[in-house]
Protein backbone atom coordinates (compact mmCIF):
# COMPACT_ATOMS: atom_id res chain seq x y z
CA UNK A 1 0.00 0.00 0.00
CA UNK A 2 2.81 2.35 0.97
CA UNK A 3 4.63 1.45 -2.22
CA UNK A 4 1.52 2.15 -4.28
CA UNK A 5 1.15 5.53 -2.59
CA UNK A 6 4.78 6.33 -3.30
CA UNK A 7 4.39 5.39 -6.96
CA UNK A 8 1.27 7.54 -7.10
CA UNK A 9 3.09 10.57 -5.71
CA UNK A 10 6.11 9.94 -7.93
CA UNK A 11 3.91 9.77 -11.01
CA UNK A 12 2.18 13.10 -10.31
CA UNK A 13 5.57 14.68 -9.62
CA UNK A 14 6.96 13.34 -12.90
CA UNK A 15 3.92 14.67 -14.77
CA UNK A 16 4.26 18.14 -13.20
CA UNK A 17 7.97 18.25 -13.96
CA UNK A 18 7.93 16.85 -17.47
CA UNK A 19 4.85 18.60 -18.87
CA UNK A 20 6.61 21.90 -19.78
CA UNK A 21 9.48 19.90 -21.24
CA UNK A 22 7.07 18.12 -23.60
CA UNK A 23 5.70 21.49 -24.77
CA UNK A 24 9.26 22.74 -25.27
CA UNK A 25 10.14 19.65 -27.27
CA UNK A 26 7.08 19.98 -29.53
CA UNK A 27 7.86 23.67 -30.13
CA UNK A 28 11.46 22.80 -30.93
CA UNK A 29 10.40 20.13 -33.44
CA UNK A 30 7.92 22.53 -35.03
CA UNK A 31 10.67 25.13 -35.45
CA UNK A 32 13.04 22.59 -37.01
CA UNK A 33 10.39 21.33 -39.39
CA UNK A 34 9.62 24.83 -40.62
CA UNK A 35 13.34 25.64 -41.05
CA UNK A 36 13.50 28.14 -38.21
CA UNK A 37 16.07 28.33 -35.42
CA UNK A 38 14.54 26.45 -32.52
CA UNK A 39 14.02 28.05 -29.11
CA UNK A 40 15.58 26.32 -26.13
CA UNK A 41 13.77 23.22 -24.97
CA UNK A 42 13.68 24.79 -21.50
CA UNK A 43 11.81 27.89 -22.67
CA UNK A 44 8.46 26.88 -21.11
CA UNK A 45 10.15 26.51 -17.69
CA UNK A 46 11.67 29.98 -18.01
CA UNK A 47 8.32 31.45 -19.05
CA UNK A 48 6.57 29.87 -16.09
CA UNK A 49 9.32 31.02 -13.71
CA UNK A 50 9.23 34.55 -15.11
CA UNK A 51 5.47 34.71 -14.71
CA UNK A 52 5.61 33.47 -11.12
CA UNK A 53 7.96 36.26 -9.98
CA UNK A 54 5.91 39.06 -11.57
CA UNK A 55 3.18 41.02 -9.82
CA UNK A 56 -0.33 39.99 -10.74
CA UNK A 57 -2.73 42.50 -12.27
CA UNK A 58 -6.44 41.77 -12.12
CA UNK A 59 -9.18 43.78 -13.84
CA UNK A 60 -11.31 46.01 -11.57
CA UNK A 61 -14.56 44.26 -12.33
CA UNK A 62 -13.19 40.74 -11.90
CA UNK A 63 -15.23 38.51 -9.59
CA UNK A 64 -13.63 35.98 -7.19
CA UNK A 65 -14.32 33.34 -9.82
CA UNK A 66 -11.70 34.94 -12.03
CA UNK A 67 -9.03 34.50 -9.33
CA UNK A 68 -10.23 31.02 -8.46
CA UNK A 69 -10.30 29.58 -11.98
CA UNK A 70 -6.53 29.07 -12.51
CA UNK A 71 -6.27 27.03 -9.30
CA UNK A 72 -9.29 24.90 -10.21
CA UNK A 73 -7.97 24.27 -13.73
CA UNK A 74 -4.51 23.39 -12.48
CA UNK A 75 -5.94 21.18 -9.75
CA UNK A 76 -8.14 19.31 -12.23
CA UNK A 77 -5.20 18.66 -14.53
CA UNK A 78 -3.00 17.49 -11.65
CA UNK A 79 -5.79 15.13 -10.52
CA UNK A 80 -6.05 13.80 -14.06
CA UNK A 81 -2.31 13.17 -14.02
CA UNK A 82 -2.87 11.02 -10.94
CA UNK A 83 -5.46 8.87 -12.72
CA UNK A 84 -3.67 8.28 -16.01
CA UNK A 85 -1.18 5.39 -15.73
CA UNK A 86 1.95 6.83 -17.28
CA UNK A 87 4.67 5.02 -15.29
CA UNK A 88 2.90 2.21 -13.44
CA UNK A 89 -0.58 0.80 -13.06
CA UNK A 90 -0.52 0.47 -9.27
CA UNK A 91 -2.46 3.68 -8.65
CA UNK A 92 -4.65 4.06 -5.54
CA UNK A 93 -6.30 7.02 -7.30
CA UNK A 94 -7.06 4.92 -10.35
CA UNK A 95 -9.60 2.82 -8.46
CA UNK A 96 -11.37 5.93 -7.18
CA UNK A 97 -11.96 7.44 -10.62
CA UNK A 98 -12.46 5.73 -13.97
CA UNK A 99 -12.26 7.00 -17.54
CA UNK A 100 -15.66 8.69 -17.36
CA UNK A 101 -14.56 10.63 -14.28
CA UNK A 102 -11.41 11.56 -16.19
CA UNK A 103 -13.47 13.06 -19.02
CA UNK A 104 -15.47 14.82 -16.32
CA UNK A 105 -12.30 16.34 -14.85
CA UNK A 106 -11.35 17.73 -18.25
CA UNK A 107 -14.88 19.10 -18.62
CA UNK A 108 -14.66 20.76 -15.17
CA UNK A 109 -11.46 22.54 -16.19
CA UNK A 110 -13.05 23.62 -19.46
CA UNK A 111 -16.17 25.03 -17.80
CA UNK A 112 -14.13 27.01 -15.28
CA UNK A 113 -11.78 28.51 -17.81
CA UNK A 114 -14.71 29.45 -20.06
CA UNK A 115 -16.56 31.08 -17.15
CA UNK A 116 -13.45 33.00 -16.15
CA UNK A 117 -12.96 34.18 -19.72
CA UNK A 118 -16.50 35.56 -19.79
CA UNK A 119 -16.17 37.05 -16.31
CA UNK A 120 -14.41 40.26 -17.36
CA UNK A 121 -16.83 40.85 -20.20
CA UNK A 122 -14.35 41.65 -22.95
CA UNK A 123 -15.22 40.69 -26.50
CA UNK A 124 -12.19 38.45 -27.00
CA UNK A 125 -12.72 36.45 -23.83
CA UNK A 126 -16.38 35.79 -24.60
CA UNK A 127 -15.55 34.81 -28.15
CA UNK A 128 -12.85 32.42 -27.00
CA UNK A 129 -15.12 30.90 -24.36
CA UNK A 130 -17.92 30.31 -26.83
CA UNK A 131 -15.60 28.68 -29.32
CA UNK A 132 -13.99 26.53 -26.63
CA UNK A 133 -17.38 25.22 -25.52
CA UNK A 134 -18.34 24.65 -29.17
CA UNK A 135 -15.22 22.55 -29.79
CA UNK A 136 -15.59 20.84 -26.43
CA UNK A 137 -19.14 19.67 -26.93
CA UNK A 138 -18.15 18.11 -30.26
CA UNK A 139 -14.91 16.53 -29.00
CA UNK A 140 -16.20 15.05 -25.75
CA UNK A 141 -18.52 12.38 -27.22
CA UNK A 142 -15.75 11.24 -29.55
CA UNK A 143 -13.32 10.98 -26.61
CA UNK A 144 -15.87 8.99 -24.59
CA UNK A 145 -16.45 6.62 -27.51
CA UNK A 146 -12.68 6.02 -27.85
CA UNK A 147 -12.44 5.23 -24.14
CA UNK A 148 -15.53 2.99 -24.32
CA UNK A 149 -13.93 1.00 -27.14
CA UNK A 150 -10.88 0.35 -24.97
CA UNK A 151 -13.20 -0.49 -22.07
CA UNK A 152 -15.10 -3.00 -24.21
CA UNK A 153 -11.87 -4.75 -25.17
CA UNK A 154 -10.64 -5.01 -21.59
CA UNK A 155 -13.98 -5.27 -19.81
CA UNK A 156 -13.40 -2.40 -17.40
CA UNK A 157 -13.68 1.38 -17.39
CA UNK A 158 -10.78 1.83 -15.00
CA UNK A 159 -7.69 3.02 -16.85
CA UNK A 160 -5.09 0.95 -14.91
CA UNK A 161 -7.07 -2.24 -15.59
CA UNK A 162 -7.39 -1.33 -19.29
CA UNK A 163 -3.65 -0.79 -19.57
CA UNK A 164 -2.88 -4.02 -17.70
CA UNK A 165 -5.18 -5.99 -20.02
CA UNK A 166 -3.86 -4.42 -23.21
CA UNK A 167 -0.19 -4.61 -22.25
CA UNK A 168 -0.23 -8.22 -21.08
CA UNK A 169 -2.95 -9.70 -23.30
CA UNK A 170 -2.17 -11.84 -26.37
CA UNK A 171 -0.61 -9.97 -29.25
CA UNK A 172 -2.99 -9.53 -32.15
CA UNK A 173 -4.32 -7.19 -34.79
CA UNK A 174 -7.04 -4.99 -33.35
CA UNK A 175 -8.72 -3.04 -36.18
CA UNK A 176 -10.98 -1.40 -33.60
CA UNK A 177 -7.98 -0.04 -31.69
CA UNK A 178 -6.51 1.32 -34.92
CA UNK A 179 -9.71 3.26 -35.65
CA UNK A 180 -9.89 4.44 -32.05
CA UNK A 181 -6.26 5.56 -32.25
CA UNK A 182 -6.91 7.79 -35.24
CA UNK A 183 -10.05 9.18 -33.60
CA UNK A 184 -8.16 9.85 -30.37
CA UNK A 185 -5.40 11.70 -32.25
CA UNK A 186 -8.00 13.95 -33.87
CA UNK A 187 -9.73 14.62 -30.55
CA UNK A 188 -6.47 15.44 -28.79
CA UNK A 189 -5.50 17.87 -31.54
CA UNK A 190 -8.80 19.68 -31.03
CA UNK A 191 -8.76 19.54 -27.22
CA UNK A 192 -5.19 20.79 -26.86
CA UNK A 193 -5.72 23.76 -29.19
CA UNK A 194 -3.38 22.33 -31.82
CA UNK A 195 -3.13 23.31 -35.46
CA UNK A 196 -6.03 22.02 -37.50
CA UNK A 197 -8.42 23.58 -34.98
CA UNK A 198 -6.44 26.30 -33.19
CA UNK A 199 -2.92 27.68 -33.41
CA UNK A 200 -1.04 27.57 -30.07
CA UNK A 201 1.53 30.11 -31.31
CA UNK A 202 -0.83 32.97 -32.07
CA UNK A 203 -1.87 35.82 -29.81
CA UNK A 204 -2.96 38.40 -32.32
CA UNK A 205 -5.46 36.77 -34.57
CA UNK A 206 -9.21 36.68 -34.64
CA UNK A 207 -9.00 32.93 -35.11
CA UNK A 208 -7.51 32.13 -31.70
CA UNK A 209 -9.51 30.05 -29.25
CA UNK A 210 -7.41 29.01 -26.27
CA UNK A 211 -5.24 32.14 -26.16
CA UNK A 212 -8.30 34.39 -26.38
CA UNK A 213 -9.49 33.05 -23.04
CA UNK A 214 -6.18 33.75 -21.30
CA UNK A 215 -5.82 37.34 -22.54
CA UNK A 216 -6.90 38.94 -19.25
CA UNK A 217 -4.63 36.84 -17.06
CA UNK A 218 -1.16 37.84 -15.90
CA UNK A 219 1.67 36.69 -13.65
CA UNK A 220 1.02 33.72 -11.35
CA UNK A 221 -2.49 33.11 -12.68
CA UNK A 222 -1.19 32.97 -16.23
CA UNK A 223 1.73 30.78 -15.14
CA UNK A 224 -0.69 28.28 -13.59
CA UNK A 225 -2.85 28.27 -16.71
CA UNK A 226 0.15 27.77 -19.00
CA UNK A 227 1.37 24.97 -16.78
CA UNK A 228 -2.13 23.47 -16.75
CA UNK A 229 -2.35 23.47 -20.54
CA UNK A 230 1.09 21.82 -20.71
CA UNK A 231 -0.21 19.23 -18.21
CA UNK A 232 -3.29 18.72 -20.37
CA UNK A 233 -1.10 17.93 -23.38
CA UNK A 234 0.98 15.61 -21.21
CA UNK A 235 -2.14 13.85 -19.92
CA UNK A 236 -3.61 13.37 -23.37
CA UNK A 237 -0.28 12.02 -24.64
CA UNK A 238 -0.12 9.62 -21.71
CA UNK A 239 -3.70 8.43 -22.28
CA UNK A 240 -2.85 7.84 -25.95
CA UNK A 241 0.34 5.99 -25.08
CA UNK A 242 -1.41 3.97 -22.38
CA UNK A 243 -4.22 2.86 -24.70
CA UNK A 244 -2.40 2.32 -27.99
CA UNK A 245 1.27 1.63 -27.06
CA UNK A 246 0.89 0.22 -23.55
CA UNK A 247 4.24 -1.59 -23.52
CA UNK A 248 6.78 -0.76 -20.88
CA UNK A 249 4.33 0.44 -18.23
CA UNK A 250 5.18 -1.11 -14.87
CA UNK A 251 2.35 -3.28 -13.56
CA UNK A 252 3.19 -3.49 -9.85
CA UNK A 253 4.32 -1.06 -7.19
CA UNK A 254 7.86 -2.33 -7.59
CA UNK A 255 10.26 0.64 -7.33
CA UNK A 256 12.72 -0.84 -9.83
CA UNK A 257 10.02 -1.50 -12.42
CA UNK A 258 8.77 2.08 -12.10
CA UNK A 259 12.27 3.48 -12.45
CA UNK A 260 12.68 1.29 -15.53
CA UNK A 261 9.41 2.58 -16.96
CA UNK A 262 10.56 6.21 -16.81
CA UNK A 263 13.07 6.10 -19.71
CA UNK A 264 10.53 4.15 -21.81
CA UNK A 265 7.92 6.82 -21.12
CA UNK A 266 10.34 9.62 -22.05
CA UNK A 267 11.30 7.85 -25.27
CA UNK A 268 7.64 7.29 -26.20
CA UNK A 269 6.79 10.92 -25.40
CA UNK A 270 9.72 12.15 -27.51
CA UNK A 271 8.48 10.14 -30.51
CA UNK A 272 4.87 11.20 -29.87
CA UNK A 273 5.84 14.87 -29.56
CA UNK A 274 7.80 14.74 -32.81
CA UNK A 275 4.81 13.13 -34.56
CA UNK A 276 2.54 15.84 -33.15
CA UNK A 277 4.87 18.52 -34.53
CA UNK A 278 4.87 16.73 -37.89
CA UNK A 279 1.06 16.61 -38.02
CA UNK A 280 0.90 20.29 -37.09
CA UNK A 281 3.42 21.28 -39.75
CA UNK A 282 1.71 19.27 -42.47
CA UNK A 283 -1.82 20.51 -41.87
CA UNK A 284 -3.37 23.92 -42.36
CA UNK A 285 -5.63 25.52 -39.81
CA UNK A 286 -9.28 24.81 -40.50
CA UNK A 287 -11.95 27.47 -40.58
CA UNK A 288 -13.93 27.33 -37.36
CA UNK A 289 -17.02 26.21 -39.28
CA UNK A 290 -15.04 23.27 -40.62
CA UNK A 291 -14.35 22.06 -37.08
CA UNK A 292 -17.67 20.16 -36.80
CA UNK A 293 -16.74 18.16 -39.90
CA UNK A 294 -13.31 17.33 -38.43
CA UNK A 295 -14.75 16.29 -35.08
CA UNK A 296 -17.68 14.46 -36.68
CA UNK A 297 -15.09 12.36 -38.50
CA UNK A 298 -13.39 11.63 -35.18
CA UNK A 299 -16.73 10.66 -33.64
CA UNK A 300 -17.54 8.49 -36.65
CA UNK A 301 -14.21 6.66 -36.40
CA UNK A 302 -14.69 6.11 -32.67
CA UNK A 303 -18.21 4.73 -33.16
CA UNK A 304 -16.98 2.53 -36.01
CA UNK A 305 -14.25 1.25 -33.72
CA UNK A 306 -16.85 0.25 -31.15
CA UNK A 307 -19.13 -1.37 -33.75
CA UNK A 308 -16.24 -3.26 -35.33
CA UNK A 309 -15.25 -4.49 -31.88
CA UNK A 310 -18.80 -5.73 -31.29
CA UNK A 311 -19.03 -7.42 -34.71
CA UNK A 312 -15.57 -8.93 -35.12
CA UNK A 313 -14.60 -9.26 -31.48
CA UNK A 314 -11.22 -7.62 -32.10
Amino acid at each position, binding site marked *: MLGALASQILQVAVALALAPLLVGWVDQCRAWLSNRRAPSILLPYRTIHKLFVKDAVVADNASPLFRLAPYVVFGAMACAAAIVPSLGTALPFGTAADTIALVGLFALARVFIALAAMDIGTAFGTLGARREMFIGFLAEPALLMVLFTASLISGSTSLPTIVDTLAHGPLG*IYPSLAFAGVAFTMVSLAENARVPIDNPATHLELTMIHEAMLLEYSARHLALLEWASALKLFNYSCIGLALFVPFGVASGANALAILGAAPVLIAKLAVGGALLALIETLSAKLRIFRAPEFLATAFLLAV*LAMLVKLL*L*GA
Partner: protein
Amino acid sequence: MSIGTQLINLFAAVLLLLAFAMLAQRRVVSLIDLFAGQGLVLALSTAVVAYTTSQPHLYQSVALTVILKVFLLPWILHRLARKLDVRWEFEGLVNTPTTMLIGIVLVVFAFNLALPISEIASTINRSTLGIAIASVMLSFLMMIVRRKAIPQVIGFLSMENGLFFAATSATYGMPMVVELGIALDVLVGMLILGVFFFQIREQFDSLDLKHLEQLRDEQLARRAPPGLEDLAKPDRELPPETTR
Protein backbone atom coordinates in the same frame (compact mmCIF):
# COMPACT_ATOMS: atom_id res chain seq x y z
CA MET B 1 -7.84 -16.30 -33.34
CA SER B 2 -5.54 -17.41 -36.14
CA ILE B 3 -3.47 -14.88 -38.04
CA GLY B 4 -5.58 -15.51 -41.17
CA THR B 5 -8.81 -14.58 -39.42
CA GLN B 6 -7.16 -11.52 -37.92
CA LEU B 7 -5.99 -10.37 -41.34
CA ILE B 8 -9.45 -10.93 -42.82
CA ASN B 9 -10.97 -8.90 -39.99
CA LEU B 10 -8.42 -6.14 -40.55
CA PHE B 11 -9.17 -5.97 -44.28
CA ALA B 12 -12.90 -5.97 -43.57
CA ALA B 13 -12.46 -3.03 -41.19
CA VAL B 14 -10.39 -1.15 -43.79
CA LEU B 15 -13.13 -1.83 -46.34
CA LEU B 16 -15.70 -0.26 -44.03
CA LEU B 17 -13.41 2.72 -43.49
CA LEU B 18 -12.96 3.15 -47.25
CA ALA B 19 -16.72 3.04 -47.75
CA PHE B 20 -17.04 5.97 -45.32
CA ALA B 21 -14.13 7.80 -46.94
CA MET B 22 -15.89 7.51 -50.30
CA LEU B 23 -19.06 8.86 -48.74
CA ALA B 24 -17.16 11.92 -47.48
CA GLN B 25 -14.86 12.51 -50.45
CA ARG B 26 -15.86 15.42 -52.66
CA ARG B 27 -13.05 15.36 -55.23
CA VAL B 28 -13.96 13.10 -58.11
CA VAL B 29 -10.36 12.05 -58.83
CA SER B 30 -9.73 11.03 -55.21
CA LEU B 31 -13.04 9.20 -55.25
CA ILE B 32 -11.84 7.08 -58.16
CA ASP B 33 -8.57 6.35 -56.32
CA LEU B 34 -10.53 5.31 -53.23
CA PHE B 35 -12.59 3.00 -55.42
CA ALA B 36 -9.38 1.42 -56.76
CA GLY B 37 -8.15 1.06 -53.15
CA GLN B 38 -11.39 -0.66 -52.23
CA GLY B 39 -10.85 -3.13 -55.07
CA LEU B 40 -7.31 -3.80 -53.87
CA VAL B 41 -8.36 -4.46 -50.27
CA LEU B 42 -11.13 -6.72 -51.57
CA ALA B 43 -8.60 -8.70 -53.62
CA LEU B 44 -6.19 -8.97 -50.67
CA SER B 45 -8.92 -10.17 -48.35
CA THR B 46 -10.13 -12.74 -50.90
CA ALA B 47 -6.54 -13.92 -51.38
CA VAL B 48 -6.17 -14.47 -47.64
CA VAL B 49 -9.43 -16.42 -47.58
CA ALA B 50 -8.27 -18.49 -50.55
CA TYR B 51 -4.94 -19.23 -48.87
CA THR B 52 -6.28 -20.12 -45.41
CA THR B 53 -9.06 -22.35 -46.73
CA SER B 54 -7.05 -23.63 -49.74
CA GLN B 55 -9.74 -22.89 -52.31
CA PRO B 56 -7.90 -22.47 -55.63
CA HIS B 57 -10.93 -21.18 -57.52
CA LEU B 58 -10.92 -18.06 -55.34
CA TYR B 59 -7.51 -17.10 -56.80
CA GLN B 60 -9.22 -16.69 -60.17
CA SER B 61 -11.66 -14.19 -58.71
CA VAL B 62 -8.74 -12.42 -57.02
CA ALA B 63 -7.07 -12.05 -60.43
CA LEU B 64 -10.34 -10.90 -61.96
CA THR B 65 -10.85 -8.35 -59.18
CA VAL B 66 -7.35 -6.95 -59.52
CA ILE B 67 -7.51 -6.60 -63.31
CA LEU B 68 -11.02 -5.24 -63.43
CA LYS B 69 -11.46 -3.18 -60.26
CA VAL B 70 -7.96 -2.00 -59.51
CA PHE B 71 -6.77 -1.20 -63.03
CA LEU B 72 -9.38 -1.28 -65.79
CA LEU B 73 -12.41 0.42 -64.23
CA PRO B 74 -10.44 3.17 -62.43
CA TRP B 75 -8.58 3.81 -65.68
CA ILE B 76 -11.83 4.18 -67.62
CA LEU B 77 -13.24 6.42 -64.88
CA HIS B 78 -10.12 8.60 -64.81
CA ARG B 79 -10.33 9.01 -68.58
CA LEU B 80 -13.99 9.90 -68.39
CA ALA B 81 -13.40 12.42 -65.59
CA ARG B 82 -10.62 14.05 -67.60
CA LYS B 83 -12.62 14.17 -70.82
CA LEU B 84 -15.71 15.51 -69.11
CA ASP B 85 -13.53 17.89 -67.07
CA VAL B 86 -15.20 17.16 -63.72
CA ARG B 87 -13.01 17.68 -60.68
CA TRP B 88 -15.15 18.80 -57.82
CA GLU B 89 -18.56 18.11 -56.60
CA PHE B 90 -19.91 20.59 -54.13
CA GLU B 91 -22.15 19.71 -51.24
CA GLY B 92 -24.53 16.86 -52.03
CA LEU B 93 -28.18 16.80 -51.10
CA VAL B 94 -27.33 16.36 -47.41
CA ASN B 95 -24.26 17.92 -45.76
CA THR B 96 -21.30 15.71 -44.94
CA PRO B 97 -21.61 15.34 -41.13
CA THR B 98 -25.29 14.43 -41.47
CA THR B 99 -24.46 11.91 -44.19
CA MET B 100 -21.89 10.37 -41.84
CA LEU B 101 -24.44 10.06 -39.04
CA ILE B 102 -26.96 8.43 -41.41
CA GLY B 103 -24.09 6.12 -42.42
CA ILE B 104 -23.52 5.08 -38.80
CA VAL B 105 -27.22 4.26 -38.43
CA LEU B 106 -27.01 2.14 -41.59
CA VAL B 107 -23.96 0.31 -40.23
CA VAL B 108 -25.77 -0.52 -36.98
CA PHE B 109 -28.75 -1.74 -39.00
CA ALA B 110 -26.55 -3.86 -41.27
CA PHE B 111 -24.65 -5.42 -38.36
CA ASN B 112 -27.89 -6.42 -36.69
CA LEU B 113 -29.22 -7.78 -39.97
CA ALA B 114 -26.10 -9.88 -40.52
CA LEU B 115 -25.93 -11.38 -37.04
CA PRO B 116 -28.47 -14.24 -37.53
CA ILE B 117 -27.19 -14.99 -41.05
CA SER B 118 -23.56 -15.25 -40.00
CA GLU B 119 -24.51 -17.62 -37.19
CA ILE B 120 -25.80 -20.10 -39.79
CA ALA B 121 -22.81 -19.72 -42.13
CA SER B 122 -19.82 -21.97 -41.57
CA THR B 123 -17.10 -19.95 -43.35
CA ILE B 124 -14.11 -18.69 -41.39
CA ASN B 125 -14.87 -15.10 -42.34
CA ARG B 126 -18.59 -15.20 -41.55
CA SER B 127 -18.35 -12.37 -39.04
CA THR B 128 -17.40 -9.97 -41.83
CA LEU B 129 -20.80 -10.41 -43.49
CA GLY B 130 -22.10 -7.46 -41.49
CA ILE B 131 -19.39 -5.25 -42.94
CA ALA B 132 -20.23 -6.46 -46.44
CA ILE B 133 -23.90 -5.58 -46.03
CA ALA B 134 -22.91 -2.26 -44.46
CA SER B 135 -20.71 -1.33 -47.41
CA VAL B 136 -23.52 -2.22 -49.84
CA MET B 137 -25.83 0.11 -47.91
CA LEU B 138 -23.24 2.87 -47.70
CA SER B 139 -22.74 2.73 -51.46
CA PHE B 140 -26.50 2.91 -51.82
CA LEU B 141 -26.52 5.98 -49.58
CA MET B 142 -23.78 7.51 -51.71
CA MET B 143 -25.89 7.03 -54.84
CA ILE B 144 -28.80 8.71 -53.09
CA VAL B 145 -27.01 11.79 -51.74
CA ARG B 146 -24.80 12.57 -54.73
CA ARG B 147 -26.09 14.88 -57.43
CA LYS B 148 -23.52 14.32 -60.16
CA ALA B 149 -23.47 11.38 -62.52
CA ILE B 150 -19.90 10.12 -62.01
CA PRO B 151 -20.06 9.74 -58.20
CA GLN B 152 -23.37 7.94 -58.62
CA VAL B 153 -21.77 5.47 -61.00
CA ILE B 154 -18.86 4.98 -58.59
CA GLY B 155 -21.43 4.30 -55.88
CA PHE B 156 -22.98 1.68 -58.12
CA LEU B 157 -19.62 0.04 -58.77
CA SER B 158 -18.66 0.01 -55.10
CA MET B 159 -22.02 -1.57 -54.33
CA GLU B 160 -20.94 -4.43 -56.56
CA ASN B 161 -17.71 -4.61 -54.51
CA GLY B 162 -19.80 -4.95 -51.36
CA LEU B 163 -21.90 -7.72 -52.91
CA PHE B 164 -18.77 -9.58 -53.96
CA PHE B 165 -17.43 -9.31 -50.41
CA ALA B 166 -20.75 -10.55 -49.03
CA ALA B 167 -20.62 -13.55 -51.35
CA THR B 168 -17.07 -14.38 -50.25
CA SER B 169 -17.87 -14.12 -46.57
CA ALA B 170 -21.12 -16.10 -46.69
CA THR B 171 -20.26 -18.92 -49.12
CA TYR B 172 -16.63 -18.52 -50.26
CA GLY B 173 -17.62 -16.79 -53.48
CA MET B 174 -20.04 -17.45 -56.30
CA PRO B 175 -19.54 -20.01 -59.09
CA MET B 176 -17.04 -18.92 -61.69
CA VAL B 177 -19.68 -18.54 -64.44
CA VAL B 178 -21.72 -16.15 -62.33
CA GLU B 179 -18.63 -14.18 -61.35
CA LEU B 180 -17.47 -13.82 -64.95
CA GLY B 181 -20.97 -12.80 -65.95
CA ILE B 182 -21.11 -10.09 -63.29
CA ALA B 183 -17.64 -8.84 -64.20
CA LEU B 184 -18.64 -8.56 -67.84
CA ASP B 185 -21.90 -6.87 -66.88
CA VAL B 186 -20.10 -4.29 -64.80
CA LEU B 187 -17.61 -3.59 -67.56
CA VAL B 188 -20.24 -3.25 -70.28
CA GLY B 189 -22.43 -1.22 -67.94
CA MET B 190 -19.51 1.12 -67.30
CA LEU B 191 -18.91 1.59 -71.04
CA ILE B 192 -22.59 2.28 -71.71
CA LEU B 193 -22.77 4.72 -68.80
CA GLY B 194 -19.68 6.45 -70.19
CA VAL B 195 -21.52 7.09 -73.45
CA PHE B 196 -24.54 8.11 -71.40
CA PHE B 197 -22.51 10.77 -69.53
CA PHE B 198 -21.72 12.50 -72.82
CA GLN B 199 -25.38 12.36 -73.82
CA ILE B 200 -26.45 13.88 -70.50
CA ARG B 201 -23.93 16.64 -70.80
CA GLU B 202 -24.81 17.44 -74.41
CA GLN B 203 -28.45 17.70 -73.45
CA PHE B 204 -28.09 19.76 -70.28
CA ASP B 205 -24.60 21.32 -70.34
CA SER B 206 -23.97 19.68 -66.97
CA LEU B 207 -23.69 16.30 -65.31
CA ASP B 208 -26.03 17.33 -62.53
CA LEU B 209 -28.78 14.75 -62.49
CA LYS B 210 -31.39 17.08 -61.07
CA HIS B 211 -31.94 18.35 -64.61
CA LEU B 212 -33.27 14.93 -65.51
CA GLU B 213 -36.25 15.57 -63.26
CA GLN B 214 -37.29 18.47 -65.40
CA LEU B 215 -37.80 16.47 -68.60
CA ARG B 216 -41.37 16.80 -69.76
CA ASP B 217 -43.25 16.64 -72.99
CA GLU B 218 -44.64 19.57 -74.99
CA GLN B 219 -48.05 19.55 -73.40
CA LEU B 220 -46.73 19.71 -69.85
CA ALA B 221 -44.19 22.32 -70.86
CA ARG B 222 -46.96 24.67 -71.96
CA ARG B 223 -48.64 24.41 -68.58
CA ALA B 224 -45.39 24.88 -66.65
CA PRO B 225 -44.59 28.29 -65.15
CA PRO B 226 -42.74 30.60 -67.56
CA GLY B 227 -39.42 30.29 -65.74
CA LEU B 228 -39.20 26.59 -66.39
CA GLU B 229 -40.09 26.74 -70.05
CA ASP B 230 -36.63 27.29 -71.42
CA LEU B 231 -35.35 24.33 -69.40
CA ALA B 232 -38.01 22.08 -70.85
CA LYS B 233 -37.39 22.99 -74.47
CA PRO B 234 -36.26 19.80 -76.23
CA ASP B 235 -34.15 21.49 -78.90
CA ARG B 236 -31.49 23.20 -76.83
CA GLU B 237 -28.32 24.38 -78.41
CA LEU B 238 -25.69 21.69 -78.36
CA PRO B 239 -22.29 22.54 -76.84
CA PRO B 240 -19.40 22.86 -79.29
CA GLU B 241 -17.98 19.59 -80.52
CA THR B 242 -14.44 20.42 -79.45
CA THR B 243 -14.83 18.90 -76.00
CA ARG B 244 -15.33 15.43 -77.34
